[in-house]
């Protein structure tokens, strides 16, 4: 996938599009899987193969197939680049949630997890539709390229008579200058970073476990602190948010208690967990270990935000 699909096997536009893949002949389909450039491409391919419209139902229906395909791809390609795999996994996880939600009896949307699932579904849906729009447009571009490619611009070398008229070059470059320029140009450029890319995030990732540990230490020291005091050293809003979430977790586990004398009054947090160290690791079971900042479309990047959180 990724650069392999783009570089070594440039899929011809017509043959490689999922819509044109033969529905029969599974072996052919599997071989061509390498032509899919990303999870959305694969998902659209699966949906169109089953002649379904893109709906919630369609997404739930193709879940198993999607997952078995990424398993197979993984087997065929050995280890993946992490950021590519993670995108597939994020999509797979959302699809699984979707499917699970459909299997369960319909009920009121009550808890945060339900809402999170709805949001994740909508987000996946929106992203998929957006991707499909660009895919369709790219097909139109390809056609235009094709048609316009039949026109050749006049691009003839300048007649010698005119070349001779060019003003004399002002030349101040030395051989050393040139060597320096060559050295700079030939310097290997930054290669594609290995692992998960987070450069599309506006802020840094903040670990809820780490923050819980910090809070624990502060509270054990001071006994009781206001939320303002607990977040006084927070360099960014995200840290404040994460510390707040960490406090909620710690409250649930009964290691802190809150005192608030009047509505909207100052919130004071007291350590009530005794001497046993708080098992901050347990938080990861519910939350991802890290929070990515930003919830705009930009943050929906390759595998950085746990969708169930949103």
């Amino acid at each position: 996938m990724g650069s392999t699909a783009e570089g070594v096997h440039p899929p011809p536009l017509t043959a490689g599009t999922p819509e044109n893949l033969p529905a029969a002949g599974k072996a052919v389909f599997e071989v061509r899987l390498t032509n899919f450039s990303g999870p959305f491409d694969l998902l659209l391919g699966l949906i169109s193969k089953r002649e379904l419209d893109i709906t919630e139902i369609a997404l739930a229906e193709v879940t198993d197939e999607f997952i078995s395909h990424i398993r197979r791809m993984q087997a065929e390609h050995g280890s993946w680049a992490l950021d590519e795999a993670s995108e597939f996994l994020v999509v797979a996880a959302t699809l699984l949630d979707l499917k699970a939600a459909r299997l369960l009896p319909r009920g009121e949307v009550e808890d945060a997890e339900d809402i999170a699932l709805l949001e994740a579904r909508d987000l996946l849906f929106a992203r998929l539709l957006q991707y499909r729009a660009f895919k369709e447009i790219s097909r139109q571009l390809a056609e235009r390229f094709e048609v316009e490619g039949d026109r050749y611009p006049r691009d003839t070398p300048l007649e010698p008579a005119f070349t001779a008229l060019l003003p004399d070059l002002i030349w101040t470059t030395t051989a050393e200058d040139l060597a320096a320029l060559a050295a700079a140009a030939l310097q290997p450029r930054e290669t594609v970073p290995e692992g998960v890319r987070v450069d599309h995030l506006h802020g840094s990732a903040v670990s809820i476990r780490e923050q819980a540990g910090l809070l624990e230490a502060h509270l054990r020291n001071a006994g009781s602190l206001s939320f303002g005091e607990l977040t006084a050293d927070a360099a960014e809003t995200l840290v404040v948010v994460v510390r707040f979430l960490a406090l909620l977790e710690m409250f649930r586990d009964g290691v802190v208690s809150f005192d608030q004398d009047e509505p909207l009054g100052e919130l004071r947090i007291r350590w009530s967990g005794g001497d046993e160290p708080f098992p901050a690791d347990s938080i990861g079971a519910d939350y991802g270990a890290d929070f990515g900042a930003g919830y705009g479309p930009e943050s929906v990047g390759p595998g950085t935000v746990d969708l169930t959180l949103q």
Partner: protein
Amino acid sequence: MTGTDLDEAAPTGAEAAAAEAFSAAEQPGGLKAALEAVLMVVENPVTEQELAQALAVGVEEVQAMLVNLQQEYDGYTGKGPKSADDPQPRGFELRNVGGGWRIYSRSWFAPVVSAFVLGGQSSRLSQAALETLAVIAYRQPVSRARVSAIRAVNVDSVVRTLTQRALIAAVGTDPETGAVLYGTTPHFLERLGLGSVAELPRLSPHLPGLENLGDYEDTTY
């Protein structure tokens, strides 16, 4: 310098010389032919302003002549409806694409012409490259990360390919993140036969049900 009283005014360059002593309008064929002569040597689509400057006439005049030439090449005389007596279209056409005017061979002669053009048109773009190009075209200026997010795959190598082909170029940096922002080039428009980005096919018909996703669509297409 055809012997005038300007001898002591040393010409500062060829331009001055041309402007002072040469009148294109007085040559056989006149200004229109002069315009054609200039169009013969352009390497990229050339703007009406550049042409007007070279001919030392107004932009409106150049515009009128360009349209006139265009029709002439298309075999249309402008004298009433098209008739059998009209001249045949020429083997080339004058087009206003990619921000300027340039002469192209007629598309229907591509099978003959392609044999003579070195390397011909560059090879086809991969699906990945086309998709990336589409996202950049409609979302420009846009960072690689943003394109990656929309396509859900890493686009670094595709962006490199598109840059090398001069279809996109770095057009700035994001003031917040410092990320390089990409946009399409005039060459991109020329290759698609478009005058400007505004002429791209509309994206909205392809986005059913997404009209209200305000936080999702930060640009209106």
